C-alpha cells in the first residue's frame, strides 16, 4: 500500500516536472519579482545611456546633421575613416599617444613596484604610515589642482625651480613650452600623483607571502637582495602582469584631463592625443561624424591590444584577465 502511494506520487512528480517546465520558470520569475523591481530599472538605464551611445556610433559612417537626426542623416560609408587615415593629424596623435604611453610604461610603471619593495623593508610603523599618507595624498586631488601647482612651480619667472636655477647662475628653463621638458614634466607629474597610490596593490600581495620562506632563505644564507629577487618578486609577478595587461589595453588612450590641463599651444605637436583631438574638433568645431570615427577607431584598437596582451599573458603561463 504504502510503497504504491509513494511510487505514484513520484510518477506524478516526474510528469509534473516535464509538463510544467514553463510553469516552473514562471514560478521562479514570480518568486524573484522583487529582484526584478531592483534590476530592471538599472538595465533600462544601461540600455539607454550605455548602449544608446553605441548605436550613435553609426554616425561615423554618415554625415550627421542635427536636424536630420542619427537615422535620417546621409550614409557616406568610410568617408570619415579615409579622411582620418589620410590626414597628417592622425599620425601625429597616434604617435603622441603611443609615445606618452611608452614613456609612462618605462618610467612610471616600475616606480610603485620599487617603492613597495622599499616600503616593505621599513620596520618602524610610524615612519611607514607617515610616508604612505604623504605619498597617497596627490592621488585624491584632481589634475586641475595638480597641474596648477606644476605650472606655477615650473614658471620661468616666478617658479621655485627656475629660482633655484637662476640663483645657481643658470638660465631659466621654459619647462612647459619646451617639447622635451614638457614630456619630462608629463612623466614626473604622473609619478607624483599615482606612484605612491600604486604601491597599495603591490604591498597587499607582498604581505601575502609566507614568512617562513624568508626564514628558510635566511638560514640558507640568502641576503636581502637575494630574498627580494627569489621570493618577493616572483610572489608579486602575477599582479605585475595583470597591471601590465591593463596598461597595454589602453596603449593608445591617454586620459583627457591630465593632457588638457598640462598642455598648451607651444607643445601641442607632442601633446595632442585622441581624447583632446576629439574634444577640439568634435565639441568645439562640431565635426560630430568625423570625431565619432576617430573614437570608433580608438576603441577598436584598444580592444585588439587588450585581447593581444591578454593572449600573450596566458601563453606565458600567467592568468590573464579572462
Amino acid at each position, binding site marked *: 500500500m504504502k510503497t504504491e502511494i509513494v511510487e505514484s506520487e513520484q510518477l506524478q512528480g516526474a510528469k509534473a516536472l516535464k509538463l510544467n517546465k514553463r510553469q516552473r520558470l514562471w514560478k521562479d520569475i514570480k518568486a*524573484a519579482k522583487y*529582484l*526584478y523591481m*531592483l*534590476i530592471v530599472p*538599472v*538595465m533600462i*538605464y*544601461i540600455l539607454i*545611456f*550605455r*548602449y544608446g*551611445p*553605441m*548605436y*550613435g*556610433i553609426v*554616425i561615423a559612417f554618415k554625415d*550627421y546633421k542635427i536636424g536630420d537626426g542619427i537615422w535620417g542623416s546621409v550614409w557616406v560609408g568610410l568617408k570619415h575613416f579615409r579622411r582620418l587615415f589620410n590626414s597628417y593629424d592622425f599620425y601625429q596623435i597616434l604617435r603622441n599617444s603611443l609615445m606618452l604611453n611608452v614613456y609612462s610604461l618605462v618610467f612610471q610603471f616600475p616606480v610603485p613596484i620599487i617603492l613597495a619593495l*622599499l*616600503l616593505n*623593508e621599513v620596520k618602524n610603523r610610524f615612519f611607514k604610515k*607617515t610616508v604612505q599618507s*604623504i*605619498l*597617497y*595624498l596627490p592621488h*585624491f*586631488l*584632481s589634475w*586641475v*589642482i595638480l597641474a*596648477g*601647482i606644476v*605650472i*606655477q612651480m615650473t*614658471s620661468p*619667472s*616666478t617658479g*621655485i625651480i627656475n629660482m633655484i636655477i637662476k*640663483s645657481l647662475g643658470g638660465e631659466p628653463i621654459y619647462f612647459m613650452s619646451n617639447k622635451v621638458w614638457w614630456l619630462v614634466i608629463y612623466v614626473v607629474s604622473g609619478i*607624483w600623483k599615482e606612484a605612491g597610490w600604486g604601491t*597599495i*596593490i603591490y604591498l*597587499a*600581495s607582498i604581505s601575502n607571502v609566507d614568512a617562513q620562506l624568508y626564514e628558510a632563505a635566511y638560514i640558507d644564507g640568502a641576503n*636581502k637582495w637575494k630574498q627580494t629577487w627569489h621570493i618577493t618578486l616572483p610572489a608579486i609577478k602575477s599582479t605585475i602582469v*595583470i597591471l601590465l595587461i591593463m596598461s597595454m589595453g589602453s596603449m593608445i588612450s591617454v586620459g583627457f*584631463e591630465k593632457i588638457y*590641463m598640462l598642455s598648451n599651444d607651444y607643445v601641442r605637436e607632442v601633446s595632442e592625443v585622441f*581624447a583632446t583631438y*576629439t574634444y577640439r574638433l*568634435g*565639441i568645439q568645431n562640431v565635426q*560630430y561624424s568625423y570625431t*565619432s570615427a576617430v*573614437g570608433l577607431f580608438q*576603441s577598436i584598437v584598444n*580592444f585588439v591590444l*587588450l585581447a593581444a596582451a591578454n593572449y600573450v599573458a596566458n601563453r606565458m603561463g600567467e592568468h590573464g584577465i579572462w
Partner: protein
Amino acid sequence: MAHKKRIRISTGERIFYIVNYFFLTLLGISTLYPFVNTIANSLSSSRAILTGEVVLLPVEWTVEAYRQITTQGRIFHSMANTVYLTLIGTFLNMLVTTMCAYPLSKRYFPGKMLFVTLIAITMFFGGGMIPTFILIRTIGLMDKYGALWLLSLFSTGNMIILRPFFQQLPAELEESAKIDGANDITVLVRIYLPLSKAVLATLTLFYAVGWWNSYMGPLLYISDPDKTVLMLKLKQLLDQSQMAQLHPEEVGVVKQIVAPESFKAASIIVSTVPILCVYPFLQKYFVKGVMVGSIKG
C-alpha cells in the same frame, strides 16, 4: 639583552636600511613640498614672490589673495554647486549600485546571465565622447546636472566590488528572514545593508571624490556660469591669472588682482582644503577598497 632574539644584521644591510629611510624621507618631502610652496605663495606679498624669496614659509605675510577670492571670482558659489552635485550624485550612485549588485549576487534567477553579460560588455566597449554628447543633447539635458548624474549613475567597477560582499553573507540569514515573511527588498534593507557598512562607506567615498574632482563631464555639458562647478571655476581662474601674468595690459576682468601668482596659489589651496579635511577617512577607506578590488581582480 633586549636584542637577544633579533636576527643579526650585516653591515651591508645596515647601510641599506639607512639609505632606505633617507631615500623615503626625501621622497616624502618632495611629494609634499609643492603643496607647502603653494601655501607659502598664497600668503606672500607679490614683491616677495617676484623676487623669488618665497621658498618654504610665507614672506611678508598677507591674506590679500584670500580676501580677493572671497569678494570676487565666485569660487564659493561654484563650491556650493559642487557640494550639491556631489551629495545628490553620490546618493544616486549608492542607490543604483546597490540595486544592481544585490540581485546579481543571488545564485539564480531567470535572466541573470543576460543581465551580467549586458553589463560586462559595457566594460570593454562604449559609445565614446561624441555619440554620448549627441544623446544628451537629443534628450534635452544640456546645462542640467541631470546629464552628469545620469551619465555617471553607477560605475561597473564599484558594482563588482560590492557584489561579492553580498554573496559571502550566509544564506541562512536570508532564508530565516524569508520564513518570517520578509521579501527580497526587506532582506536587502534590514539585513544586507547593515552588514556591509564598511564596504558601503568605501564606495560612498570613491563616488564622492569622483564627483568633487569631476571636470570633463561639467566641461562638456555645463556652460551656464551660474551652474559652474568648482574644478571648472578653478581652471578658469588659473587661466585668467595666467593671462594676467603674460599680458597684463589686455586683461580686463582680473585687472584688480595685485599678485596673480598668489591669487592662483590661494584658489588652489581653497579648492584643496575640503579634500584635506576628510583625508584621514579617505585614506583609510580607499586603501580598503583597493585591497578588496585587488583580491577579486
